[in-house]
C-alpha cells in the first residue's frame, strides 16, 4: 500500500495502533541467526498451527488483529530479530505477562499452547535458570542480563517483526522522518545530531554531526550516504542483530541523513557472512519502496532517496571507510591516505557520509525524542548508550546495551553473571583486532571512547571477549596477528611484512623456542608497523601485542625463560595426564583420535604422552575432571 502523504501515513499508524491495542497477548519467537540455527522457525510454525487447532484466536499480521472480536482480543504471533540472549535460545517471549521461555524445542510447543496460552500457567522448566543462584526467573524484568540494560539502538530488536512495516509503524517507526520532513530544515536535522553528541559507533568515535556538516559544506551536486554493515571485528555482532532485527530503522535513519545532506542515493554494505541480514534489508527496502517511503517523492514531500545493497567480499579491511568505498565502486578494497576526506571526496569521488549501522539507528530516536534526551545519557564526552557483544568465558553471553560510562565490572559480572564454570577472570578483550586485552585491575574502568583508548585498548565496534585463566595471552596475541596478516590488504610494507615477522617471533615463543631478546624485538617491530602504516588496520594492528606485553609480560617470560605455558594452551609446552579422578568410564579412550589412551572399564586409564598429540579431545569429553594439563 502506497502512502502518498504524511496524513495517509498517520492515518495508517492510527489504525494499526488500534489493532495493536486490541491484542490480548503478543507471542514473539526469536528468529535471529542463533535461534534460527536452533530451529526457531519450526517452533514458530508449530506454535501458530497448534494454537489455531486448539481453538485460540491467533493472528500473524498486525493488520488482521483489528476489527470486531470476542471479549479478549486475539493473540498476535510473530517472529522477531535477535533478542540478544543467543546462548539460551531458541527464545519465545510472551507479553504483557513477560514470560521468557528458553531453550525451546518443537516438542515443547504442545505444552506451551496447553498450559500457558490456554490456561495462563507458566511452565517452570522452560524459564531461565540464573547461574549465580540457580533460581528460575520468569521474564526480562527479573533477569539481570536484561534488567540492567538500557536499550536505544537495540530497542526494537527482538520486539518487533522485522519483516513488517506495519509493526514498525505501530512502534513509532517513521515518526522521526515525518518530523524531519515536515517540521525541520535539513540544517536543523544536522544541528540535532550535533547537539546529541552522537559519536560514530563503528570504532573511531568521530562526532557524527560534524561529519555530516563538513560533507554538506563540501562542493559538489551529488552526495552519497553509506551504511557500513561490514562488521568485521571477530567477536562482535551488534550490527548483524540490528540489521536482522530492525531493518526499517536502518533505512529510516539513512533516509533522515539523506534529507539532511540533500542526498538522493544511499548504499548499505553488508558482510558476506551475514546472509540473513541481507535478506531482511532487501525485504525492508522493497516494502519501504512500495509504501512510498523510499524512491521518488517520499510521502508526497518532493524529497527523493533510494538505497542499494552491496554484499561484502569477505575482506576485513573493507570495514575501513575508504576501502569500503573502493569496494562499492568495484575495486579491490585498498584504503587510501587519511588526508583525503571522504566527506569531500568519497564514493565515486563525491562528498559522502559513511556511518555504521548502530550510528544510523541512533538517528531516528534522536530526532524523535530530541537531542537533549540522548545527550542526557552517558558521560561528558561519550553520549548515549552503546551496544556490546559480551562473549567468551562468561555465564551470560549475548548482546547488551548500556549507558556509556558504566564499568567493565558491571558489564561482565552483573549483566554477564561472572565467569563460566566459576573460573578466574583473566582479561577482557575489547576493540577487535585493533584493541587490546585489559586485566583484572582495570575492571573498574568506565566504558567510554576515551577511557578505553587511554588504557591501551579501544572501544572499537563493541566486541567484548572475556577470557579466563585457561586462555593464554601469548596465544591470543598471536591469534590477532595471524588474523591481521590474512586481512592486511598488502599495500603498506610495514603492515604486510612487519606483521609476518611479529608472528614468526610469537610462534617461536609458543613453540618454546623463544629467545631472551624476543620481547624487545616485538616492541621494536610494533613501533615500526604503527608509525609507517597508512590506515587504521596497520596502525592499530600491534595493539593486541602491546597490551598483552604491558599487562601480561610475565606470561611471555614464562614461555621464553621457563618454557612453560601457565594457561595450558600452547601445545609444545604442555603435557596431558590422567589424574586420580578417573573412574574408568572409557569415554576418553574412544575419543582419542590417535589411540594414546588405554584402560579397561572401572580402572584408571593410562595416557601415553609420546603418542599424545595434545588435541584436547579427552579433556573436552571427560566429565570427571580427570584430565590434567601441566
Amino acid at each position, binding site marked *: 500500500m502506497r502512502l502518498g502523504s504524511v496524513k495517509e501515513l498517520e492515518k495508517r499508524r492510527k489504525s494499526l495502533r488500534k489493532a495493536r491495542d486490541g491484542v490480548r497477548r503478543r507471542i514473539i519467537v526469536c528468529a535471529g541467526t*542463533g535461534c534460527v*540455527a536452533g530451529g526457531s522457525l519450526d517452533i514458530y510454525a508449530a506454535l501458530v498451527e497448534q494454537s489455531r487447532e486448539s481453538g485460540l484466536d491467533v493472528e500473524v499480521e498486525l493488520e488482521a488483529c483489528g476489527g470486531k472480536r470476542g471479549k479478549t482480543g486475539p493473540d498476535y504471533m510473530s517472529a522477531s530479530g535477535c533478542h540478544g540472549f543467543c546462548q539460551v535460545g531458541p527464545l519465545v517471549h510472551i507479553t504483557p505477562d513477560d514470560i521468557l521461555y528458553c531453550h525451546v524445542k518443537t516438542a515443547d510447543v504442545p505444552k506451551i499452547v496447553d498450559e500457558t496460552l490456554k490456561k495462563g500457567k507458566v511452565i517452570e522448566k522452560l524459564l531461565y535458570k540464573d547461574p549465580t543462584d540457580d533460581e528460575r526467573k520468569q521474564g526480562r524484568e527479573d533477569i539481570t542480563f536484561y534488567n540492567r540494560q538500557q536499550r536505544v539502538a537495540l530497542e526494537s530488536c527482538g520486539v518487533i517483526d522485522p519483516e513488517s512495516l506495519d509493526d514498525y509503524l505501530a512502534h513509532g517507526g517513521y515518526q522521526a522522518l515525518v518530523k524531519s520532513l515536515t517540521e525541520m530544515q535539513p540544517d536543523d536535522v544536522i544541528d540535532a545530531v550535533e547537539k546529541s553528541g552522537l559519536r560514530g559507533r563503528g570504532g573511531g568515535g568521530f562526532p557524527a554531526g560534524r561529519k555530516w556538516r563538513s560533507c554538506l559544506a563540501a562542493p559538489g551536486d551529488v552526495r552519497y550516504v553509506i551504511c557500513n554493515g561490514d562488521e568485521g571485528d571477530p567477536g562482535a*555482532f551488534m550490527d548483524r542483530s540490528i540489521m536482522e532485527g530492525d531493518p526499517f530503522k536502518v533505512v529510516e535513519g539513512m533516509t533522515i541523513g539523506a534529507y539532511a545532506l540533500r542526498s538522493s542515493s544511499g548504499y548499505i554494505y553488508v558482510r558476506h557472512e551475514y546472509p540473513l541480514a541481507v535478506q531482511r534489508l532487501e525485504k525492508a527496502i522493497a516494502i519501504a519502496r512500495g509504501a512510498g517511503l523510499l524512491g521518488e517523492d517520499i510521502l508526497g514531500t518532493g524529497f527523493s532517496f533510494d538505497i542499494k545493497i552491496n554484499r561484502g*567480499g569477505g575482506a576485513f579491511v573493507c570495514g575501513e571507510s575508504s576501502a569500503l568505498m573502493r569496494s562499492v565502486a*568495484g575495486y579491490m578494497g585498498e584504503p587510501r591516505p587519511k588526508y583525503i576526506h571522504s566527506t569531500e571526496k568519497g564514493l565515486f569521488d563525491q562528498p559522502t557520509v559513511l556511518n555504521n549501522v548502530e550510528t544510523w539507528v541512533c538517528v531516528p530516536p534522536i530526532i524523535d525524542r530530541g537531542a537533549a534526551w540522548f545527550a542526557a545519557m552517558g558521560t561528558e564526552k561519550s553520549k548515549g548508550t552503546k551496544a556490546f557483544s559480551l562473549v*567468551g568465558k562468561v555465564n551470560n553471553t549475548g548482546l547488551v546495551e548500556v549507558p556509556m560510562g558504566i564499568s567493565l565490572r558491571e558489564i561482565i559480572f552483573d549483566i554477564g553473571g561472572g565467569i563460566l564454570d566459576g573460573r578466574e577472570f583473566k582479561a577482557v578483550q575489547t576493540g577487535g583486532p585493533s584493541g587490546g586485552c585489559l586485566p583484572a585491575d582495570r575492571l573498574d574502568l568506565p566504558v567510554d571512547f576515551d577511557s578505553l583508548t587511554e588504557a591501551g585498548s579501544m572501544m572499537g565496534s563493541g566486541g567484548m571477549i572475556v*577470557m579466563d585463566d585457561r586462555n593464554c595471552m601469548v596465544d591470543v596475541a598471536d591469534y590477532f596477528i595471524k588474523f591481521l596478516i590474512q586481512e592486511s590488504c598488502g599495500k603498506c610494507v610495514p603492515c604486510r611484512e612487519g606483521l609476518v615477522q611479529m608472528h614468526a617471533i610469537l610462534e617461536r615463543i609458543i613453540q618454546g623456542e623463544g629467545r631472551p631478546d624476543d620481547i624487545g624485538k616485538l616492541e621494536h617491530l610494533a613501533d615500526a608497523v604503527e608509525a609507517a602504516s597508512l590506515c587504521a588496520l596497520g596502525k592499530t594492528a600491534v595493539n593486541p601485542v602491546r597490551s598483552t606485553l604491558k599487562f601480561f609480560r610475565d606470561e611471555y617470560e614464562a614461555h621464553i625463560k621457563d618454557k612453560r605455558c601457565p594457561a595450558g594452551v600452547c601445545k609444545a609446552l604442555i603435557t596431558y595426564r590422567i589424574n586420580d579422578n578417573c573412574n574408568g568410564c572409557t569415554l576418553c579412550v574412544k575419543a582419542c583420535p590417535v589411540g594414546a589412551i588405554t584402560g579397561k572399564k572401572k580402572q584408571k586409564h593410562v595416557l601415553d604422552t609420546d603418542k599424545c598429540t595434545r588435541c584436547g*579431545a579427552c579433556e573436552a569429553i571427560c566429565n570427571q575432571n580427570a584430565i590434567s594439563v601441566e
Partner: protein
Amino acid sequence: MSSVHVNRIIDRHGAERASLIPVLQDIQDDYNWISEPHLRQVADRLGLPLSEVYGVASFYRALSLEPRGKTLIRVCKGTACHVRGAQLIQEELERQLGIQAGGTTEDMAYTLEVVNCVGACGMAPVVIVGDKYFPGVKPHRAKKLVQTERDEE
C-alpha cells in the same frame, strides 16, 4: 564460448565497473567457483583488462578461483570461538576429512574453510555445514558432524 547464464548475470547488474563485484558474487553463488573462461567473459563484457578482473577476484576471499566441494564446512575462528577452543575443532575436522583448512576432499564432496567470525558468538564455537549452524561444538562432536553428514549423502 561465452556462457549465456553469465551474460544474463551481467545484464541484470549492468555492464559497468561498479557491477564487477556483484557479478562475480553471483557467478560464485551459481557455480560455486569462478573459472578462467568466466573471468575472461566478465572482463570482455565490462571492458576491463583481465588482470583487473583477476585482481579483484583474487582479493576477496568469498570468491574462489578453484572448484570447491559440494558441501562447504566452515569453522568459525572469531575471537569468541577461538577462546572456546575452535582450534581443536578445526584440527579434528582436518583429521576426519583428511584435508587441511582451505582444501577440498578428493571426491569433491567437501571443502573445509576457516572463517573469521560469522557473528554467532553467543553460540561459540560454531561450525557451519552448508547453511546449517551447529552451536557449542566439542571436538568429539566435530567427528560426529562429519559422520552424520556422510551418512545423509
